[in-house]
């Protein structure tokens, strides 16, 4: 069937609410407004205000309440409008959700799912555009996933809900309108493995979330020049599927890591270090990175575009590695 990323997330939410009475959705404007990105439109009408709960603008408290409800055995799905606003509930996520199992000596579980939008590309300026999922991927005790395809938008939620630990789902805001085919019987997918989205033998382009499409576009351009790029979609940012990364690099002997986060202290730094630790002698060239420029995302279109990883920059980095640059 023809659908969108947005509708795929909605299908997953609807199915979760229908299947498990412990599941409820809460967040700012998820109900009457229909969701900031129109993801949850119609769910309030279908499931009622007890299970689709509009919250006040109190990120710290409603996320904390989600943690508490999860401790008590519910399966809350908490929506935080964007990762930028999640900084108001960072304390609850990092000091409670991530730590409770360990601090309690394994007695307390937090089977919570937190969804949030991330990323730039819509000219909404610095306080609405950042990609901070790499920060969350630093924290033991939480899992971090980034659906980049319609199948994953449809299938990751069920796996996240089935997980006994807190899972953060990062939906890139520029992907909601993405259109594509989805199998009628599409269902849950794993949240354990990275996926090769395009095989190739000359260079590995490692990407996730909003940068997957850009890496695929770069691979397309490279193919026209006779360079076969493999595109690896990380899918899960914590715990990283290091085996898949190393296997790809061993095939291609070169890697470009693409990350919408800033380069310094980023997820791309982690991926690069893992390659260095695990496949150093398989490499024909140093790992390259294409990240956001070290600047808050500016408003004007030309500067925003210049600040973000773009297919041309990814292709150029790959060309340099294969000696075509």
């Amino acid at each position, binding site marked *: 069937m023809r659908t969108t990323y947005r509708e795929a997330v909605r299908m997953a939410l609807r199915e979760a609410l229908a299947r498990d009475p412990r599941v409820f959705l809460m967040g*700012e*404007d998820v109900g*009457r*407004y*229909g969701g*900031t990105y*129109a993801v949850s439109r119609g769910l309030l009408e279908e499931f009622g205000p007890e299970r689709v709960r*509009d*919250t*006040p*603008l*109190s*990120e*710290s*408290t409603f996320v904390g309440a989600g943690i508490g409800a999860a401790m008590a055995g519910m399966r809350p799905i908490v929506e935080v409008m964007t990762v*930028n*606003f999640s900084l*108001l509930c960072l304390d609850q996520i990092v000091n409670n959700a991530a730590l409770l199992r360990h601090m309690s000596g394994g007695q307390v579980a937090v089977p919570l799912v937190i969804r949030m939008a991330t990323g730039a590309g*819509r*000219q*909404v*300026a*610095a*306080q*609405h555009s950042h990609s901070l999922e790499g920060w969350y991927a630093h924290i033991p005790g939480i899992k971090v996933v980034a659906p980049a395809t319609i199948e994953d938008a449809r299938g990751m939620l069920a796996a996240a809900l089935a997980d006994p630990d807190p899972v953060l789902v990062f939906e890139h805001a520029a992907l909601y309108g993405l259109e594509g085919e989805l199998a009628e019987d599409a269902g849950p997918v794993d949240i354990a493995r990275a996926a090769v989205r395009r095989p190739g033998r000359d260079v590995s382009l490692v990407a996730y979330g909003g940068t997957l499409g850009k890496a695929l576009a770069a691979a397309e351009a490279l193919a026209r020049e006779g360079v076969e790029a493999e595109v690896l979609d990380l899918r899960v940012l914590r715990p990283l599927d290091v085996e898949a990364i190393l296997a790809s690099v061993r095939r291609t002997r070169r890697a470009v890591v693409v990350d919408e986060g800033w380069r310094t202290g980023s997820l791309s730094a982690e991926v690069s270090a893992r390659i260095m630790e695990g496949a150093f002698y398989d490499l024909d060239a140093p790992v390259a990175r294409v990240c956001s*420029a*070290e*600047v*808050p995302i*500016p*408003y*004007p*279109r*030309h*500067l925003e575009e*210049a*600040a973000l990883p773009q297919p041309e920059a990814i292709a150029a980095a790959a060309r340099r590695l294969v000696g075509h640059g």
Partner: protein
Amino acid sequence: MSEPGTAAVPSREHGLALLSDMLRIRRLEERCAELYGQGKIRGFLHLYIGEEAVATGAMRALRPEDAIVATYREHGHALLRGVPAAALMAEMFGKATGCSRGRGGSMHLFDAGRRFYGGNAIVAGGLPLAVGLALADRLRDERRVTACFFGDGALAEGEFHESLNLAALWRLPVLFLCENNLYAMGTAIERHQAQLDLTLKARGYATAAESVDGMDVLAVEAAARRAAEYVRAGEGPFLLEAKTYRFRAHSAYDPELYRPKEEVERWKQRDPIPALEATLRAAGLLADEDVAGIEREAAREVEEAVAFAEASPWEPVEDLLRDVYATPEGRGGGAP
């Protein structure tokens, strides 16, 4: 709420000035909406249309040395603070001549020279900044007010409560101005606040408070003057609530599923601009030529601003990394 009609009829000159201020905001924003449709202004655009009496009345109580902190719905506040319409429009276009060099856009208008400290798009993010600006004044014995505008949605954030408490505890000169337009995006205030009487919230923090009809610019001005005097006299912070209404969608992406059209129409009957016109006409203070003159001036200001923004240059891409730190690489110097 202050009694209706407690605000005396203003002088002709003053009445015309208030009318002009509100119309300047209204016409500027109507043009912004058009420009948004044409793709000249992009990103988010939050219009203040319907709420103009609040900023207009409140600004009259402030002096040039006072500081202002606002939200992402701040075009009117910036304009009345004296940010030239041209610099404001250029900012919305993202041009290098904008009041924030084009980096911020509609939600992040700044003019530090006029002590206009933004333009904050994190709900309640500005309140602690206002507390700090006021603290600096206190520490330096400056008799200035910091006016902090925020929406009803901010009432639910911890920062609102923490800021009121701290400002009251330290008796800081902050005028907290809640623009209660009854909605935080699609969530009506009854669905996000357990206590709807904001003066009671303030009382919980030992803070003086008053509630005023935000559709009546004269009432807002009178209340803001009382509040600002109190704050300036060193009595501590003050919470002024202006009850108002946003006529347009929250932003351009909002399909407005959450409020009935009749409700919007009912509030439009209370449009603060015709209301002031009616008051002035009834008092014999306003003639048709006056309105025509104000409209002409407002239209000229807007068109000049648009022309300036159109003609202004884009910032060169080579400058992408500027203004992240004081020095280009942000490397620290030696020990001072």
